[in-house]
């Protein structure tokens, strides 16, 4: 793990390849059971409810703010340039049970309220990596 940049996901990790591919196309997709329809996050191989298989289903990129924190300390060297930043989690509107983490941008911490509607927007880091971010819905 020595020289890894923790700001960047490993987009080749098999479990999340479809997720990062979708982000690259500015889509948000999460695993939904083909058989019983439940959503599962983080991904598992087998549906915990019916033992069925999952497919990566597209959702409207919106959700309700569950919580957040303003991080002041750079716990890794690569975060030195970023602090302070807001990391938040939202409950995705279309996918009950999916609570999803990303950074909230273009807002001040005092603007945030639990339950407020957030949009997921996409930040193309380079040709391959695109990270989702949250912005307060207009």
């Amino acid at each position, binding site marked *: 793990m020595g020289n890894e940049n923790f700001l960047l996901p490993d987009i080749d*990790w098999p479990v999340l390849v479809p997720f990062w591919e979708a982000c690259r196309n500015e889509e948000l997709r999460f695993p939904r059971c083909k058989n019983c329809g439940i959503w599962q996050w983080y991904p598992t191989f087998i549906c915990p409810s019916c033992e069925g298989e999952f497919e990566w289903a597209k959702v409207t990129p919106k959700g309700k703010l569950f*919580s957040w924190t303003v991080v002041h300390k750079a716990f890794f060297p690569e975060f030195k340039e970023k602090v302070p930043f807001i*990391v938040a989690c939202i409950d995705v509107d279309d996918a009950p049970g999916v609570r999803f983490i990303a950074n909230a941008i273009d807002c001040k911490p005092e603007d945030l309220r639990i339950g407020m509607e957030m949009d997921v927007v996409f930040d193309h880091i380079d040709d391959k990596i695109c990270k989702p971010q949250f912005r307060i819905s207009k």
Partner: protein
Amino acid sequence: MNQRTAIVGVGETTYSRNSGMTSTEILLQASYRAIHDAGLKMSDIDGVVLPRIRTELHINEFEFYTHANLRFRAIAGMDAGAGVVQAIELAQMALQSGQANYVLLYIGANQVSEPEKSSPRGIHQEDLYKRNCEMPFGFFPQPVYFGSIANRYQKLYGSIENQQAAIAVNTRKHAILNGNAQMTKPMTVEDYFKSPLLAEPLRLLDCCVMTDGAAAMVITTEERAKDLARPAATILGMATAGLNPASPFFFTQTPDPLTTSAAQTAPIAFAQAGVSRDDIDVLEIYDSFTINVILQLEDLGFCPKGEGGRFIGNGENISLDGKLPLNTHGGLLSQGYMYGMAHVIEAVKQLRGEAGLAQVKDADVSLVSGFGGWFQGTLILGGK
């Protein structure tokens, strides 16, 4: 009915930032101290339970087991403080079934001088879900998880900043009295508010320290305990559970991160013990972060959800002469991060009347709440 069991020996190394010893040496030192405290020899030990799955990865077990006569060996699968309570459950099962007569538990690591091997942060860093779903957004390490939890708590129930300060200050006072604590500089509420914000609303002084050190204990049946050197701390009630065991490390992926599994285990442990909340003389709660104390205090049933802050107040209830003296050894916050084992050891010492300057008068019943990931264990001990 199964015979009751008791903690009959406890041992600790010095808690510091640099032990100057190998992991094997500190674990041996704590273990021999616990065995001698009980008035036993290593050759009497016929069972071992490791409260932490990783302990065995970085010690020389040959050194350890050469002089014991092991018939039973187990490793607790739960994490941190929950693993400590689960290890005691496993020891009790072995004793009650006759698979062992004297069970040794040991835990410890050089968390500061060998962090990659043993620190909680190092372990979380290896998890690929965390590496890919959390770390790229800076949701890492533990202060960030608990900052997010504390923020939600404050937004739902109101500010608890003054109460977090009261916990930190109270715990430091106790650490100073303990004699084996890493943090011994007196702390005021003002010092707390001057300490830097790490992940809002958590400040540096809301967070536990990291430690080089080890702790151990010996458990036997109540009957055998009568012949031993020290007064026994009898296990009156005990339970472990996980509200969301599928993802114990993923602190956002539990439906309600403001409720710990203490909500499940406390009713079971209290019923087994046949005691009420009012009977608890000493309370030892896994305090990796101040918010964590408030959550468990509520889930253990000492106050309703959302009222932990009111219960803490300015610290009157939780001080040594208060209604419910809390973390009388200095906790993870100020004594050292010993995974919750030092909480159990303190709960034993209080019942023996051996807690030194932090002794609570007439302590008869103590309670330990061991949190670990999203697992939790409740342990109720009784003295004479």
